[in-house]
């Protein structure tokens, strides 16, 4: 197999795993410290996940080689998802129960 490609794929996997490990660390610290939920924490968790998603789409799914339109569409999905989830969080906080 093309050595350059092989290297790149391994690199992507390592990067994604490293981010996941960081999520594990941050999550554990959050649990131990008993951090109160906040918009910043929510945005952070969603943001990191969406960065991973975008890496998967561009690298593993080869969108970086695809016509620009497909890249735009998938990026649009990433951005809209982030915006909608953040909006949902803010709306939920505004209409909090009790």
């Amino acid at each position, binding site marked *: *197999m*093309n050595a350059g*490609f*092989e290297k790149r*794929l*391994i690199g*992507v*996997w390592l990067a*994604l*795993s490293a981010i*996941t*490990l960081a*999520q*594990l660390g*941050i*999550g*554990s610290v*959050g*649990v131990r410290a008993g*951090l*109160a*939920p906040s918009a910043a*924490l*929510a945005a952070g*968790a*969603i943001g*990191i*996940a*969406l960065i*991973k*998603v975008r890496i*998967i*789409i561009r*690298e*593993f*799914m*080869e*969108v970086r*080689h*695809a*016509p*620009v339109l*497909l890249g735009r*569409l*998938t990026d649009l*999905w990433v951005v*809209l*998802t982030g915006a*909608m*989830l953040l*909006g*949902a*969080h*803010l*709306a*939920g*906080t505004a*209409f*909090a*129960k009790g």
Partner: protein
Amino acid sequence: MNGRPEVVRFVPGQPDMWAFVLFEGFVFTAYFGVYVFSRARSPDLFLESQAHLDLRIGFFNTLALLASSWSVARCVQAAREGSYRAATTNAFLTMLFGFVFLVSKLREWVVEIEQGFTFTADEFSSFYYFLTGIHFLHLLIGFVALAVAVYQLRSPARRSQEIVETCATYWHTIDFLWVLIFALLYVMR
């Protein structure tokens, strides 16, 4: 067949599958939105219930699916270069990683249900089982997609690169949806 030169842009697999990825992606965005909204409405309840989940298992599951994405990407590249044997091996490797995820997920559910953390236990648990359950269903369909890819790779008479790429695109979708589910259910506070 040589790898396509960098300058030539192409859609991996059928564009039709990309329509599915985007549409189903938006359906999931909607599910996630309802979850995040409900969560923000009763943050304490969700946080308390979330303690039933083991972050480490979620981490392990994520690694398994990321690895499966890696191997299926190798499968596509190998098939593109004409090394069908390597492509088939990687497809099976993907199934193996997928299977590791499947077993781990099932085990996790069983342990949680035994602890009384069931679908109807509380609001968070309902979302947890719903999101992981619907994702699990996509995973099961993913095995069908991989089987189609292997079937294509097996015989020189078939070997449609387009279909192999289409199946891989579906499989990656399972992966990236899980990445979001992991963040929303296990990590988010």
